[in-house]
């Protein structure tokens, strides 16, 4: 079990058994940036991302106070974040895809470990992937970013989307296949 997962479970235990605010604060420190990024990636507004992030953590606290069963704290946060974004879009009555081209340009940057020394060819290759991602339908794009960009476990993704793990694996497989096809076309 990775150490960060173990830490999350211990903190979650403290939170559920003792309603320890300090444990909640530590979990906030671990996940706040990731959740903010996840939300900002979808709403493309600093103010809205901040409001939703704050709202997500508060909802998570209430969820814990109600003694509801939690399998994964990160899974809970992502699910709450996703639902909050959906609520926002509904309120805006927007019909466009969650990710617009502009959003993606704001959200996803091509970075590397040795960014300055990275050759031009590699950069081009990654840009192609981003463009291909933009062309994917929302469901496929979401699962690929959750799995490989946010690096969530399949069980967490399943919890976030509310779909079965096997169905999510099938969706991920199809999404990757579609992405590959798009890259080949390009």
């Amino acid at each position, binding site marked *: 079990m990775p150490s960060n997962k173990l830490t999350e479970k211990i903190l979650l235990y403290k939170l559920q058994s003792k309603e320890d605010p300090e444990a909640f604060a530590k979990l906030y420190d671990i996940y706040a940036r990731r959740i903010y990024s996840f939300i900002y990636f979808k709403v493309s507004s600093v103010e809205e991302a901040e409001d939703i992030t704050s709202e997500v953590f508060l909802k998570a606290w209430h969820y814990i106070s109600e003694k509801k069963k939690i399998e994964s704290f990160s899974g809970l946060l992502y699910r709450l974040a996703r639902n909050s974004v959906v609520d926002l879009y509904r309120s805006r009555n927007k019909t466009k895809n969650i990710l617009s081209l502009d959003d993606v340009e704001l959200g996803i940057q091509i970075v590397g470990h040795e960014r300055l020394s990275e050759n031009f060819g590699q950069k081009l290759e990654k840009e192609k992937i981003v463009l291909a991602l933009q062309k994917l339908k929302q469901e496929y794009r979401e699962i690929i970013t959750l799995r490989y960009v946010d690096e969530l476990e399949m069980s967490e993704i399943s919890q976030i989307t509310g779909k079965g793990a096997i169905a999510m694996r099938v969706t991920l497989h199809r999404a990757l296949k579609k992405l*590959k096809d798009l890259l080949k076309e390009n």
Partner: protein
Amino acid sequence: MSRELIKQLKMLKHEAVKPNEEWLQRNRGILLSQIKNTVSPGARKFSTANFWQAMSIFLPTKLVYSAVRPIIALLLIASMGVGGWIATVDASYEALPGDWLYPAKRATEKTHVVVINVVGDKSSQTKVHVELAKRRANEARKIVSNPAKVKMIGATVNELKDEINAVNKNLDEMKTSNKSVAEATKNVAQNVQEINDALREVKTGLLINGSVTSSDNLAKVAEAKDLTKNTGVKAVEVMVAKHLQGDSSISKDDVKLAINTQLASAVKDAATLNQSTEDVNKAVSVLNNEVKEIARESRGETLSTSTKILSTMIDEAAKQTQDAMNKTQQAASTTGQKVTEAKEFLSQDNLQQAMDVVREIVNTGNKAENVANNTIQALQNVLPVVTAATESPVSSSINIVVTTTAASKSVMGVTVISVSAVPSTTTTSTIQQK
């Protein structure tokens, strides 16, 4: 291609969407202050949910909730069920016939018998039946003095007989078996004496209480006693046969000890029987005198019909009792001689002949006891019919316990009382007038 693609996807980061650090810290402070307001102070109570949560730190959460939790719950339910059953059975161990926990005790015993019949050998089966017979005998001994439960004696003694019959059957099979039967036969020989002693006490108890059902119960107890004695003898016979066949697990000393125990028991039985018959004889004499006293008091006046009938009945009973006493005395004398004879054989290590003599002694004892039992039963039917004419206390060395019986009323056509005469340890006696 897929691996390469996944690798490239993982390198895509949300670099440009990092939150403002100042906002992050400010929001942290606001959140903490909000949630602290909702936390109620005071000690938190233990919750099973916390236990599962703690377990899910080390085990996959789904496994904890879908497998570990149901398994632990089932184990707890099973352990509570078994624990409850054990507690009930433990509590029912001392239960007597008529108690509400007695059926639980019997159910456990029956289950034990079924299990031992399936998985146990003849030796262990025999031990279980002996143990159950011993329990029945002790139960009968305990309830005989309880007027509310004495009616259960018959059923209890019948169950005892069933157990002894099962022991008998197993002994027959053991006789021809090649397996070692030392332990089982010794166990039977030892415990049969204890059962016999308990039945002797039951018999005395029934005579003292002199209840309506005594006559029937007395017959059952006498039957069970005969059966038990014969089973004890059979167990020793199997021991002798096995020893003579060369079974090294049964030593000569073991056989001698078992035979000596049988002899001692036979002597004890003969002495008790003799004493009982003498006491009954005394009781008949006392009652005979009482009836004659009534006749004398009438001073030539015409005796009532009931007194005449009673006088005749007691005369007959007296003869029968005298006859029984003679027979039991003779039996006691014969037993004494036979015991000497058996001991002589034992001293010569002639086990088979000693055993034959033991069998004769037991048969003699059984016959004498049957005669005595018949006499007592006859006495219970005849002697009890006494008119309530006398009000004076009777001094004798026996207790005369009196109860009214509907049966005797109908026979005599007058108010009558039934009397059963029994050996007494006190010198006072009473006749209760109805």
